[in-house]
């Protein structure tokens, strides 16, 4: 970001007055956003804010290498607006949501269909794309799955073993969380944030708490920030271990699958050592944390962590030794770095395409401003790369926890949280990728 931008700049986990967000007439706003994306910005979010009879569109951009976010908006508009998706594919889902929530039509959107609209007692899914041909077969999966997993419907278009196309509909999960946020925070808000996705309870709760703190122009005490960082890394360990077990299971390699199933539970039990709940419910609260990690508890955690990490390393090691696994991981489901950039990929999936994108590093907030974890990147973009990134992150995560558990900062766990300033506008970019929260007057 060598040149200046007309967007307002904002650091992660901070807030700014809503009145200072620049606004353009909608066509100019789309042009300005497209221009920033063309010179390397990433679209974090794009959404509508009701303004009188119209809707203001808002775009939040990330300049990852400059560790800065940028925000801009349109003046109130209605009817149609020129589609950004036609120029930048990463806007496609945001524009579908704007269309669904506010009735604004993105003119020129190549594939407009509902995100989570419900029709009666089922989602209002659009027509699924079909590949024609005598050799083609279609496989429909879900919304009730063979395993134990959240609902979603998948349509595969296959030619023999080759999957030509996959279309995903996820509206089955719609519980009205975003709608319930307005006028909040309510007494159910925190538990609703924690249950957006159970396996990322801590990431979502931390995003919510950080946002509330940013609105109140305050911060949680350092010890609470440290504790959140530890809990978040435990969550990462559990999820990566579970994912690697699932990858192994999906290529019918059962030794790693069954070992990782148990090891994931061992990591979840370490989270429950911290707060009683295996998913970290109730640990993070706006203003701080509810439970402390006393020296004896930290020592127990360190003791229990070491053998689980060793077992995990061993179970994952079997994957790389097995020719049958490598043959099914390598050159499968490849996403190039250019494609990853184009669709705005983040998280381990982006890092497995060789992109250096890690919110702990690019947009460090909380404890990660003081204690950095190295960014784990693996080129290739295939299933093998995605497995490698996870296994390397498990190692680094273990090292990070080993260091941090031995060096707790002193101080309290909870600070006074002033009431949120009503005209401020916060931003929190979450490591969970999905947790992007914003409130407005």
């Amino acid at each position, binding site marked *: 970001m060598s040149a200046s931008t007309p967007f307002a700049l904002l650091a992660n986990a901070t807030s700014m007055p809503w009145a200072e967000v620049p606004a353009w007439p909608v066509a100019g706003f789309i042009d300005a956003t497209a221009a920033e994306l063309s010179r390397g910005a990433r679209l974090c979010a794009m959404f509508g804010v009701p303004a009188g009879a119209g809707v203001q569109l808002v775009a939040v951009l990330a300049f990852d290498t400059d560790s800065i976010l940028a925000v801009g908006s349109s003046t109130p508009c209605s009817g149609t607006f020129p589609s950004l998706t036609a120029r930048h594919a990463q806007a496609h889902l945001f524009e579908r949501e704007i269309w669904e929530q506010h009735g604004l039509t993105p003119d020129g959107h190549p594939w407009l269909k509902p995100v*989570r609209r*419900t029709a*009666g*007692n*089922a*989602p209002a899914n659009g027509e699924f794309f079909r590949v024609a041909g005598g050799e083609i077969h279609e496989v429909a999966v879900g*919304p*009730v*799955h*063979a*395993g*134990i*997993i*959240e*609902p979603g419907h998948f349509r595969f278009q296959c030619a023999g073993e080759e999957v030509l196309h996959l279309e995903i509909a996820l*509206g*089955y*999960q*719609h*519980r*009205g*969380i975003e*709608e*319930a946020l307005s006028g909040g925070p309510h*007494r*159910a808000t*925190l*538990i*609703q944030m*924690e*249950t*957006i*996705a*159970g*396996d990322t*309870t801590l990431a979502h709760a931390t995003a919510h708490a950080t946002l509330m703190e940013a609105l109140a122009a305050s911060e949680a005490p350092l010890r609470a920030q440290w504790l959140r960082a530890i809990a978040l890394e435990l969550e990462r360990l559990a999820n990566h271990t579970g994912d690697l077990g699932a990858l192994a299971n999906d290529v019918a390699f059962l*030794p790693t699958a*069954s*070992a990782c*199933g*148990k090891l*994931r*539970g061992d990591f*979840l*039990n370490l989270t*429950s*050592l*911290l*707060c*009683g*709940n*295996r*998913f970290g*419910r*109730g640990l993070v609260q706006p203003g701080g944390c509810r*439970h402390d990690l006393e020296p004896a508890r930290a020592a127990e955690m360190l003791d229990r962590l070491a053998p689980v990490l060793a077992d995990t390393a*061993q179970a994952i090691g*079997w994957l790389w*030794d*097995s020719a049958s696994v490598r043959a099914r991981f390598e050159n499968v489901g490849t996403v190039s770095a250019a494609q990853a950039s184009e669709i705005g990929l983040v998280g381990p999936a982006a890092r497995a395409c060789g992109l250096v994108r890690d919110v702990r590093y690019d947009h460090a907030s909380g404890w990660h401003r003081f204690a950095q974890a190295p960014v784990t990147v693996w080129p290739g973009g295939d299933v093998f790369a995605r497995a490698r990134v996870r296994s390397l992150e498990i190692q680094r995560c273990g090292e990070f926890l080993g260091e941090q558990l031995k060096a707790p900062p002193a101080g309290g766990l909870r600070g006074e949280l002033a009431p949120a300033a009503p005209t401020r506008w916060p931003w929190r970019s979450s490591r969970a990728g999905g947790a992007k929260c914003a409130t407005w007057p």
Partner: protein
Amino acid sequence: MFIHDTLIHRLKRGCETMAYPKGPAPALPDRHGGALHVDAAQCGDDCRACVPLCPTGAITREFGQAVGLDLGRCVFCAACVDGCPQQAITRTGDHRMAVRHRDDLVLGAPGHQQVRLAAALDAKLLKLFGRSLRLRQVSAGGCNACEADTNVLGTIGWDLGRFGIQFVASPRHADGLLITGPVSKAMELALLKTYEAVPAPKIVIAVGACAIAGGPFVGHPQVNDGAAAVVPVDLYIPGCPPHPLTILDGLLRLLDRLEIARQT
């Protein structure tokens, strides 16, 4: 090489499945707290201190009546335990919470200080399912925490298969459903069709605050406030999510397997 290593590893580790239910149950984490106990006699006159603390509105107190705590709706945050000036609501540390009837989860009335634990299925169903129960799991808008703690029962540590209980990939192969999530409107049709596809006689198990009462999403127009609004429920297992031990206890209680395990 890896085959050799894998086998050596397995031999070294031995059996990793827990001794429960023949042996003692594994301890809950010290901060878990287990089921709640309500002693309404302790409540101050007209004290309603706990009512606004509950994030899901699980606690009610009508004027002149005893306090009522609905453990089905409870997310076990313990805000009421910390906020009660009389210590009328306490944590028992007990993992056992599964019940057969929705009312058995409502605490507070005289004689109802604790949950009324589930009785086994009747003799006819027990004969059919007692030694072999095949379940189809339906996540009806769950957040994946209940799903994860149900899944973990299939891992080597818990080994649900040793009780003859198994999750199957088709409702046609199933004896019943295990439902998680508040039953979003978008999942209502899918749940109904799955239920209809299970051959009779069949049972339904609701796991977690969402599936029992809507949990954190109770009252949202996008959800049904639990499975019972759509299908008849035979077993309720509360929690957010329930600890795997609580789920296992519920399943074994329903199949009368806890007694059998202790006798052998």
